[in-house]
Structures are given as C-alpha cells and as structure tokens.
C-alpha cells in the first residue's frame, strides 16, 4: 500500500494550516463569502441542509486498518457515531462543527488522509476498480496510476478554478467495475498488439441532468504519456468549458457543442505542446509508487475448512454465494461486506462497525480494505480457510448481510434527509424496497439486479445506469419518482430509458414490485437476469406492468 513520502506529509500538513488560516480570514473579513466558498469546497467542506458536511477522500478506495480505525474515531468524536460511504469512494461526515474541522483534518493527516478536492470545481478524488490488485481478470493494478494522478491533480495551479467539477476513474480490468464511461475522463487499461500496456482514454462522460456516455478520445495511450495527455484534456476543457451556465459547464457539454472530432484534434495539439514539459521525473516516481502496491505475500494453506463450512452452515453458504468474487490466487477470495442491511441507510457504517472491519482486515485480510462506488466495503485478499471465521466476525457486528449485487444492494444518494440540493427523499425509498423484497423472500430468486436512486437531477445515485433507476423530483411541492429501465454501468454502458409518468412517494415501492414481478414472469430461465430479459424484450412489457389500464385512467 502506498505510504506518504515526506513531501506528501508536508503538503497535507501545510494544507491543513492554510485552510485553518482561511477560516479565520473569512471570519475577520479578509475573504468575502464568494471568495471563501471555493476555498472551503476545495477542502471538502460543504454547507448542507442542517449542518456542514466534510467529505474525506479515500483515494482509489484503498484504506489500511489504521486509517479505518481513525475514521471510526472521527465519527465517534466529532460526528454522531457514524460515517457515510459515497458513490465516489469518499466518506462523508454529516455533522461536523466548523471550529472542529481543523482538528478533524489534522486527525486525518495523522493517518495520511485528507479532504482535498473532494468538492468544488476541481479535479476530484480519482477513483479506481475496488477489486484492484486482486481481481482475476486484471491486466495490471490501476492504483499506481490513480496515485500518480492524485499527486498531479493535488493543488494543480491551473485547475483549481475549472468551469465545473472533473471526475477521473481508472480500471485495470476489461470488466469495468469503475463506471469509466460515466466520468469526465475514464481510463481503461489495454494491451496493444505488441503486448504493451496502455490506456484507452474515454472523455466526456457524466450523469447529472444531461446524462452522456464518454467517447474514446484516444484508443491507446502509452502509460508514460498519462499525465501529459490528461493535462491536455483539462487544458482544453479549462479554455473551452462554459462558465455562463453551471448546468452546461461539464466537459460532456463541451464535447457535445464542440464536436468529438474537433475536440480530439485540439487535445492532440495541446498534448504535443505539453508533452515536452514532462522530463521523466513522473516515471521515476511511478516506479516507486508501483513498488508500494506490490501484492501481499499470499499464504499457502489447505482450503478444506471452507468447503466444510459451506456444507455445514446454510447461512454462511448463502453469504459466500452472493458476497464473494474470484481472486487471482485460487486459494483466496475477494469479500464484499454489504453496508446495505435491509432497512438501514445504504452506505452508513457505525464507528463500532468500522473498528470491527479494521480488526477483521488485520486478522484475515492482509490489512487491506476497499470502499466501492456501490457503497460497500471490500476485503480484497482473504484466504478461503479464513472465510468462516471472518463471516462470524462480521455477523456479530451486523455486517453479514448476504445481498451483494441483489435487489437490496441499492445505491442511494443522501437525498432530502441531508442534501440541500435534493428534491425528494432517496434513503427511505431504498430502505422500503429492501424491506419489501426481504418480506416477500424473493431477493435470491430475483438474482442480480442493480437499483440506483437519486434524490435530484444531479444524479449522485447514478440512477441513469441502474438496471432500475429511480429519480426523485419535486412536482408542485410533492415528491414524484421517475423510473428508468435498462441502464448499465459496466463496460457495455447504457443510459436507462424512462418508463413514463412518475409515481408518488407511497406508490414507488409497489411500482418497483410490479416491474420485478413482471420480470419473474417473463424470464426464460432462472439464470436469465433482469437486464438480459429487458434487453431481449425491450421496455414494452414492463411499461404494461407498470401502468395498468386503471392507473392510466387515474392519471388522465
């Protein structure tokens, strides 16, 4: 795991001091509110509905047990005893007090963490495949590149006042678990005909009120050109991006208005201008970073205990069937710990749960933890013989929910319960859907199904790429939920299609139930997933189930 250099350490400490000073300069009037706001945001501090919110970066989703313990301590000391894992590999504390923020930032710096550029019109926390370094299908661990990008983007002098926020995701696997096509820049590792590793560079993706999938701006970028090329994209965007309308300021609109061909030409020309500025120091640093991400020393031991536990304990077996993914080492598994217990807030973990996760990662997981954009916690390296003990440890802390990838493993934004931008609640909708299908005992029969819920058009809950997407809107002061179907965030990314009129708060769960029951009647076999059935039949039969004739009459 990457460990801060003296330079990183001094940088983060200096930044804490700077922001502390900026808070006092706001209070003494040196900075106006308009001047202070971007400084506050680029240090991760939001003003929410009820209080400040501090968003802490978890670069490329990777945490050590020591860092997880520190997050738990912060939740306990400065918040209400919990933290919220977000859809971009951050953790949010919803109740910090402004005077205590410098102390929180110092506590984070003590464990090599920060909240820098988790908000504002900056290059945000660079996200990566949460199975990085463990996945069986991986070409190369993408995290060294994400760390290089973290350093390059940190306080980059040109890009602290961009037209709008800028999100970068990187994956090292052909199976895209990082939703690269929905990012401003998506980097997908490829091997060319000569066997060399490089990136397919995707630009111009983004969800929000105008969802767009990125396009391939460079089919193969040699890894040594990464920083110069990404900087060229940012440089062109900083010049062209609109500043007259924040809803048209993301690079997806710049691409749309400029044209793919023209923007590609401009980026290539800018790249030629910038490339000579990089003299190789970044590659030397990359080599050091790569060494820091060397895989752990995997253990050779019998896995018979795992098979025995599977056949003996049906609860363990159900959990293992849903929550494990193949590891590149045959004796190991990747464990996804669900932070989606039925009826709980998706992504909320208590301080006690965080401490437990840290302890279990130290005991059974080579001291490695990941946060996924799907708001779960991953233990990427667990020897199969340890799975039963790990499961027992998770159970005691309410962390053994066997629902990963299933209907109750819902992504939901904070919605109107916390967020000042929200137009509807999203957390209670997620809770009610999870409880309803748990009561019906249908979850495992339904199989893989991704529901994603956003409480406003900004789409933090990624509803456009949910197999079932739910968007909460405000219609004349009343919550109304619009449904999209067929969205997909994988390497075959698709924006979902709207079904039609929205549903009231008390009608949205029954509406979802009608869609899912229709699927169960329509699928050809138990192993045809919801998405496959939808792709085979299209939206029509689901619309018919969603809007039965009498409901249409009511609406008219």
């Amino acid at each position: 795991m990457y460990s801060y250099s003296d330079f990183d350490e001094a940088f983060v400490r200096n930044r804490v001091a700077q922001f502390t000073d900026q808070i006092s300069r706001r209070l003494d009037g040196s900075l106006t509110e308009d001047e202070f706001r971007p400084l506050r945001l680029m240090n991760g501090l939001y003003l929410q509905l009820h209080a400040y919110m501090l968003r802490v970066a978890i670069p490329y989703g990777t945490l050590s047990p020591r860092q997880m313990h520190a997050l738990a301590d912060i939740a306990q000391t400065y918040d209400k005893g919990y933290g919220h894992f977000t859809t971009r590999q951050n953790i949010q504390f919803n109740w910090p007090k402004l005077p205590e923020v410098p102390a929180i930032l110092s506590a984070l710096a003590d464990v090599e963490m920060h909240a820098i550029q988790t908000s504002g019109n900056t290059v945000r926390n660079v996200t990566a495949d949460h199975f990085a370094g463990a996945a069986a299908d991986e070409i190369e661990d993408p995290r060294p590149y994400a760390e290089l990008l973290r350093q390059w983007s940190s306080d980059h002098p040109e890009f602290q006042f961009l037209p709008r926020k800028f999100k970068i995701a990187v994956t090292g696997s052909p199976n895209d678990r990082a939703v690269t096509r929905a990012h401003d820049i998506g980097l997908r590792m490829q091997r060319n005909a000569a066997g060399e590793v490089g990136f397919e560079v995707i630009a111009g993706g983004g969800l929000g009120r105008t969802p767009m999938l990125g396009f391939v701006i460079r089919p193969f970028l040699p890894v040594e050109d990464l920083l110069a090329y990404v900087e060229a994209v940012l440089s062109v965007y900083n010049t062209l991006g609109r500043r007259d309308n924040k809803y048209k300021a993301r690079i997806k609109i710049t691409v749309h208005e400029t044209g793919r061909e023209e923007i590609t030409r401009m980026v290539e020309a800018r790249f030629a201008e910038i490339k000579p500025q990089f003299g190789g120091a970044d590659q030397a640093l990359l080599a050091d970073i790569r060494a820091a991400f060397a895989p752990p020393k995997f253990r050779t031991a019998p896995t018979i205990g795992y098979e025995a536990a599977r056949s003996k304990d049906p609860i363990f077996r159900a959990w293992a069937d849903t929550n494990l993914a193949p590891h590149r080492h045959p004796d190991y598994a990747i464990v996804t710990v669900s932070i989606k217990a039925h009826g709980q807030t998706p992504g909320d973990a208590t301080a006690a749960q965080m401490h437990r996760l840290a302890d279990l990662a130290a005991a059974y997981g080579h001291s490695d933890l990941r946060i996924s954009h799907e708001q779960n916690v991953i233990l990427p390296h667990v020897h199969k013989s340890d799975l039963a003990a790990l499961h027992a440890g998770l159970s005691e802390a309410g962390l053994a929910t066997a629902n990963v990838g299933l209907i109750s493993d819902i992504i939901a934004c904070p919605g109107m319960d916390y967020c000042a931008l929200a137009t509807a609640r999203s957390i209670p909708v997620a809770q009610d859907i999870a409880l309803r299908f748990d009561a019906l005992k249908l979850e495992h029969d339904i199989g893989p199904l991704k529901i994603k819920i956003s409480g406003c058009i900004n789409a933090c809950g990624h509803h456009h790429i949910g197999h079932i997407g739910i968007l909460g809107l405000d219609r004349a002061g009343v919550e109304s939920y619009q449904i999209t179907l067929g969205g997909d965030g994988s390497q075959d990314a698709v924006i979902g299609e709207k079904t039609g009129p929205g549903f009231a708060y008390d009608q949205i769960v029954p509406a979802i139930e009608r869609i899912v029951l229709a699927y169960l009647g329509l699928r050809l076999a138990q192993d045809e997933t919801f998405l496959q059935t939808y792709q085979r039949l299209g939206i029509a039969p689901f619309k018919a189930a969603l809007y039965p004739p009498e409901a249409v009459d009511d609406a008219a």
Partner: protein
Amino acid sequence: MSLLVTDQGFGPVPALPFVGLDQIASHRGALDLAQTDAPEAALPYLADLACIRIAFPSVADGRGFTLARRLRALGFAGTLRAQGAIIADQYAMARRSGFDEVEIPQAMADRQPQEQWLARANWQAHDYQSRLRA
C-alpha cells in the same frame, strides 16, 4: 488605483503602453489579453513583447492560469502579469502557472494586506508539479 504584488510584497504599478490583440500589429512592447483570447494570435509577436497582462474577471474564473502556462510553453520569456479579481490564496497558483506578478485593485489590497500575500511568497514549496515535471 492598483498595486503590483510580487514575492517582495506590494509595489507601484509600472505604467506600460498596453494594447489589445486587435492592435497588436502596432504594439509598443505590452499586450493585454482577455481570459477568452487565444494565445496563438500573439505568436508572431512573442519575442518582441516585454509584458503580457492577462485579465481575471472573477475569482472563480481560472482560464488565465491556463493561458499563462500556454504562453510559457509557446516560448514567451517576458513578464507575465495577472490582473483583476485575484485573491492572496491564488498567488501561488499564479506564480506556478508562469506569472511573475499580480496587479490588484486598491480595495483588494485594503481587505487583504501585504502580509497575506507574502504568506504565499513561498510558492515553490509543496509543489507537486515541480516534482512531476522535472
């Protein structure tokens, strides 16, 4: 009234005969660029220009930083000046992007006195870019 900020603190603004891009053919050594101007238009004149001043219309508009970096990449070796709505917190960004000095209105200097700018005169410290670009 304006003031010039450098690593040494506040000073008077030297009067230079600035012209805009539309009059660049008859320039007398000093060019004014808007944040929306393309530096390519100034390319044939770069070697003769002693000073280029780039406008910052609002604190939130970062186009001038990229413009400065591009002018340096295109070979401009004269004085680069940032002018307008710039706060002390952006001084290091301006210096790192290739600016030599910052011209601010008196009202800004009153609100953010010299010591707040001098606090950022150490812009070469804690700079990831200088490590990565070597």
